[in-house]
């Protein structure tokens, strides 16, 4: 049987299939519901130093072939994470990728330091779609100088695999990708959600409590595939691709565009077994195509 093992720079995974941050909670809910077959690792809900209450409801709304969310980074904060969530998560045996965010570069560094050498934490993912409060709300992901510096500072505090997760709300995603590479990131993760809004026509105001939210799901897939394709041409870093992956074919689109691994988010809500199903589907595809490993497909859609 062909293997799904994959190497993303320093990060080795049994399968290229991850959960997207924020869509799998801290894992316990899905663990009771699904068999975790095929899962290469868990990317956890973004963690901040202090607990965050999150945004006022409604926090969700469905859109054509997609959804908007405005959760507002609700999370228990570093201390409670280390004391309560992490020990339980370590038991599941899967590689844990901890997603972190801060209002300042210093907060990222502090989080990275606190997570260093925690057993089970296989990698760190920097959620760069947060506004930098010090610099007046500029997104870390869109100010390339800031982004490069942030990544390089985190590298000093964290010696494991480092993933930079980019925002799609940019003109040329190659630029932040190159900045992340220059700063020392090992892996690029793309894409986070796109800014969107639904107006409640009856109430004549934005439907979400936070007014705007982040768009995910199949609706954004063409945008995400395009960005992965562009990042692949811009850097030599391995890519974790995501955005609207619902099935094996969707995953293959990302892999052919250049992703060495993929993450599944919104689809978990629709079909909890999406990841096991894709794992089976990828194995079948490799077998039928007579390929030994997925690696041969990564980026195969680019001109030779």
């Amino acid at each position, binding site marked *: 049987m062909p293997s799904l093992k994959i190497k993303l720079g320093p990060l080795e995974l049994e399968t290229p299939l991850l959960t997207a941050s*924020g*869509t*799998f*909670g801290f894992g316990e*809910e*899905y663990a*009771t*519901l*699904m068999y975790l077959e095929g899962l290469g690792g868990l990317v956890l*809900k973004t963690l901040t130093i202090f607990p965050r*209450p*999150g*945004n*006022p*409801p*409604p*926090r*969700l*709304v*469905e859109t*054509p*072939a*997609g*959804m908007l*969310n405005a*959760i507002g980074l*609700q999370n228990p904060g570093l201390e409670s994470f280390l004391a309560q969530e992490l020990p339980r998560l370590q038991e599941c045996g899967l590689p844990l990728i901890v997603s972190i965010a801060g209002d300042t570069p210093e907060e990222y560094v502090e989080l990275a330091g606190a997570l260093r050498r925690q057993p089970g934490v296989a990698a760190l993912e920097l959620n760069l779609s947060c506004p930098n409060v010090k610099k007046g709300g500029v997104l870390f992901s869109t100010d390339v100088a800031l982004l490069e510096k942030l990544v390089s500072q985190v590298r000093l505090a964290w010696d494991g695999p480092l993933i930079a997760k980019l925002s799609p709300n940019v003109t040329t995603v190659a630029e932040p990708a190159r900045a992340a590479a220059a700063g020392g990131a090992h892996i690029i993760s793309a894409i986070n959600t796109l800014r969107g809004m639904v107006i409640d026509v009856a109430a004549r105001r934005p439907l979400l409590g936070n007014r705007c939210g982040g768009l995910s*799901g*199949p609706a954004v897939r063409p945008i995400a595939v395009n960005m992965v394709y562009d990042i692949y041409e811009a850097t030599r870093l391995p890519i974790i691709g995501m955005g609207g992956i*619902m099935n094996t074919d969707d995953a293959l689109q990302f892999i052919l565009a250049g992703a060495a691994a993929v993450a599944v988010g*919104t689809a*978990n*809500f*629709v*079909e*909890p*077994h999406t990841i096991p199903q894709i794992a089976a589907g990828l194995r079948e595809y490799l077998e039928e195509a007579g390929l030994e490993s997925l690696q041969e497909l990564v980026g195969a859609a680019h001109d030779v």
Partner: protein
Amino acid sequence: MRQCRARVLALQEVNREFYSLILHEPYLAATVQPGQFLHLRVDSGLSPLLRRPFSVAGAFPGTGTVRLLFRCVGEGTKLLCRVREGDLLDCLGPLGTPFTPAGADPAVLLAGGTGIAPLLYLAESLLAAGRGVHLFYGATGAAALLPLERFLSPGLLIHYATEDGTAGEQGLLPDVFQRALDNGLLPGELFACGPRPFLAALARGNQRWRFPLQISLEERMACGIGACQGCAVLIQKDGVTAYARVCREGPVFRSEEVVW
């Protein structure tokens, strides 16, 4: 909680407002408790994308079936109106925290509109436990009322209220209930489900009445199982105000804990 494929035994248009859907799924029928809900995939397409939550309106472990009662209000429920006998519906359940009757008689159930669904199941299970049960049930008019006699065992006292007076007492349900209290009704505990303004009115009233009041809330859901934090509602408990998940800590909350 499991992912199940439930077989459609019957779909019926009860009246202009309600559809009744009978699903065969012995595990659900045996485990679901009043107040809990199912998260249904109404279609395998991409639009609508997400599952839809529905309370269980009745469970029959003997036949391995559960009943849903729903209104057709949008794209998802429109598709649900088109299922056919024999279709398999993918559902997650049972989900959420059920009602927890504490035992003081009579139990009074207050249903506004679609809120009747979970309270039907609760009423049946209270009756089966030998409890005394009153059901207050309000809607805009007679045509919007579910014909309760078709879904309930005898033995409970029903009070209807309609805004236009076409059935039962005229007026809003909280006012009709107030009048019953004024006339000497003494509930042991209250259970309510319905639109948010209706529940808020009851919660306000209960600041005077001070009965134990459990309410069932709705919020838009994605995962339905507690993973996405999408179905947040503000809850104040032990002096701490924080968001709770309607799909996990709820949908049933103690009314005094909800920040309205």
